[in-house]
């Protein structure tokens, strides 16, 4: 049988083998650190005017200044927290909705399944990004409306995944054993089915954080971001009109998004390989 170390040790040993994933984890830790330490490194208001507009990068200001003379580096550092916050909170909400609806549909089946899945399909007929724009237009652009909009459009895929996982796990014999012991549905779901669906949910969740950040930057690009909140999407949205004369205003926040989303994805893949090794050996 496989080596006898406890599951957590095994997980880390397998995860370490995937070099890109480890690199990505390093990147993520760095980004979170930047987000946390930003208020210390760049105190005061990130919107403050610090120098003349359009100062090129790598001189006295690391990433140069934008068209109002604001420090782009301060914007990126302080913006990290917002973008990550929006990404994570929106994803957690979407995961909650997804797990509850997907779980109910998968576990109880029958009429509840048909009803819930019909509703999920209906939600997916409206193009996700346009739906997000409508929600933000209704609730007026703010941090909360961005999070609500992103969560509302990203839960359907999670529902489909969780429903599939519940259906598969529900028929396994150790769940039948629980039923033969006379265990209540709630206990069966929480202690037996959910833990065994955890790994695909976590992996998909990590990928959803990446998508959420992309949607946030898209909304800000179209001018629907929170006007008082510094975020990467805001920086790109503002920098877009001056792209050709001051490329750095758009380039560096774009790079920040790229690196974050890239490392989340690589980390997600590493997570996936480590959590279910079977996939790794195939081929």
């Amino acid at each position: 049988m496989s080596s006898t170390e406890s599951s957590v040790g095994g997980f880390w040993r397998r995860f370490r083998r995937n070099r890109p994933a480890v690199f990505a984890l390093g990147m993520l830790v760095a980004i979170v650190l930047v987000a946390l330490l930003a208020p210390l490194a760049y105190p005061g208001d990130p919107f403050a005017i610090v120098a003349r507009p359009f100062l090129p990068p790598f001189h006295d200001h690391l990433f140069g200044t934008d068209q109002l003379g604001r420090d782009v580096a301060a914007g990126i550092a302080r913006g990290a927290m917002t973008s990550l916050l929006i990404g994570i909170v929106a994803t957690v909400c979407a995961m909650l909705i997804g797990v509850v609806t997907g779980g109910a549909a998968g576990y109880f089946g029958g009429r509840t399944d048909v009803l819930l899945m019909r509703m999920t399909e209906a939600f997916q007929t409206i193009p996700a990004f346009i739906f997000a724009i409508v929600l933000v237009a209704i609730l007026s652009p703010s941090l909360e409306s961005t999070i609500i909009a992103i969560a509302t459009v990203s839960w359907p895929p999670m529902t489909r995944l969780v429903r599939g996982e519940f259906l598969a796990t529900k028929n396994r014999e150790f769940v039948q054993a629980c039923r033969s012991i006379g265990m209540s549905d709630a206990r069966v779901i929480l202690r037996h089915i959910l833990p065994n669906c955890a790994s695909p949910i976590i992996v998909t969740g990590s990928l959803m954080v990446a998508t959420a950040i992309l949607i946030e930057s898209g909304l800000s690009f179209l001018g629907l971001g929170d006007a008082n909140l510094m975020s990467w999407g805001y920086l790109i949205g503002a920098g877009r009109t001056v792209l050709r004369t001051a490329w750095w205003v758009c380039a560096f926040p774009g790079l920040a998004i790229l690196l974050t989303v890239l490392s989340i994805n690589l980390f997600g893949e590493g997570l996936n390989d480590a959590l279910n090794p079977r996939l790794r050996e195939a081929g």
Partner: protein
Amino acid sequence: MGEALLEIRSLRVDLPPGADRAHAVDDVSLTLGQDEILCVVGESGSGKSVMARAVMGLLPVPRVRVGAGEIRFAGEELTRLPESRMRDIRGKDIAMIFQEPMTALNPVMTIGRQVTEVLAVHTRLTGAEARRQAAEFMAAVKLPDPEAMLDAYPHQLSGGQRQRAMIAMALILGPRVLIADEPTTALDVTTQAQILALIRDLQREKRTGVMFITHDFGVVAEIADRVAVMQHGRLVEAGPAQRVLSAPSHPYTQSLIAAVPNLVPRKARPLQGVPVTLALRDVEKTYRARAGLLRRAGRTVHAVRSASLTLRRDETLGIVGESGSGKSTLARCVARIIDADGGQVLLDGVDLRTLSRRAMRPYHRRVQMVFQDPYGSLNPRQKVGDIIAEGPIVHGVARGEALRRAAELIELVGLDGKALARYPHEFSGGQRQRIGIARALALQPDVLIADEPVSALDVSVQAQVLRLLADIRDRLHLSMLFITHDLRVAAQVCDTIAVMRHGEIVESGPAAEVFAAPKHAYTRELFAAVPGRNWRHPTAAAPLANPQPTG
């Protein structure tokens, strides 16, 4: 014994670092004659399958490689051949068939295309001519309506039919060697009998050398001309089938043969007057594909049709039948994992079927189940201690008391106390079944339902688990419902036998009577299909002790 066709000289196959041993096959020398069936037998992990794939050059090369030794076939040394030459041999001179008929054929290609593909690769035969020859061979393997079969897709065929198609595909070019890697393990016993007969007939007719890989000594007794026994990658014994089966020289072979239960039923125990604990009256269960909003009613499957049985205290009732006979469904109806549609499930006179979930709770404790798949029946995310203790905890026993009882039970099933703190993936198949049994016993049930508890285990481990079950049953005076498709196991364990087919109980009665004089035609067919049924191995251990039933 024809002149040597295939000669394996001190073959060694290396496993990648980190595997549980260095070599899958270690210094094995073996010859396959012109016109004979050589059975290579051994338990899982013995390396028999790896050796077969080494011959065909199908090892997953970078990770598993031929380390040393030679495989000579018709003057050529296969392990040194370039890939292009090896491809000529595969399918033309040496052919192979596999274990899982369900997944061995490409689901999106018709049977005809998959068979004629062999012709297209090795000959210039294409189109109508190839199809004609394929149809001809389909008839040779006794497949009904060959023309229609060519246009059918794999999922439209039964397991047996798919295996026949595989055989046709393998033998169509008249290969001189056929390697069969456990071709009948996944089949029902009646279908298995037909396939074994087919292979033997074709072998005699085409005088091919067949290397037949199996773990079932019954199959060896049925068709083998010569036998080779493997253990942990080494060849422990080889020789003519009669000699090895009747007078095995190597101690490992002896222990393997001894572990195979004989087809001799237990002596009947006087059970008259012993109270009935469980009685099934016309139990019904039908699966109806849900009639959609507009879809007319889907296909309906009558899984169990008016089944009636009685189970007395201390009695072991065996329910025997092929896959799809409804035996598992019936067992699940009793344990209320599935809700039967009709009839009565009387436990000491109380009908469990109509009880609400809440009312059923106390009775769950009295009926417990042991499951088939060692890897699926335990929650991989839970420690063994929690798995066993969860039952009592749910029924109100304090956690400390439940864990204490779990420690007792883990010893009872033959594992050491430290096992409680570890996770299921750290145990072997046999050990996991023991944990499953401990879990079932945790609630001190009156009736234990064992649904094919040993069919996923190697024969040696099977024997130990069966002995454990019998021992527990007698010590705790449990009545047991024993579900199995293996008549040998049924004979060894059960007092009475009920035979099920397509959801109906066709015959039931004391084991001795049913084995000696089966009344129903299907039962007779079932007994006739048991491989090696006339073979009685000499050193048969006496059937399990016959303690006196208590009142």
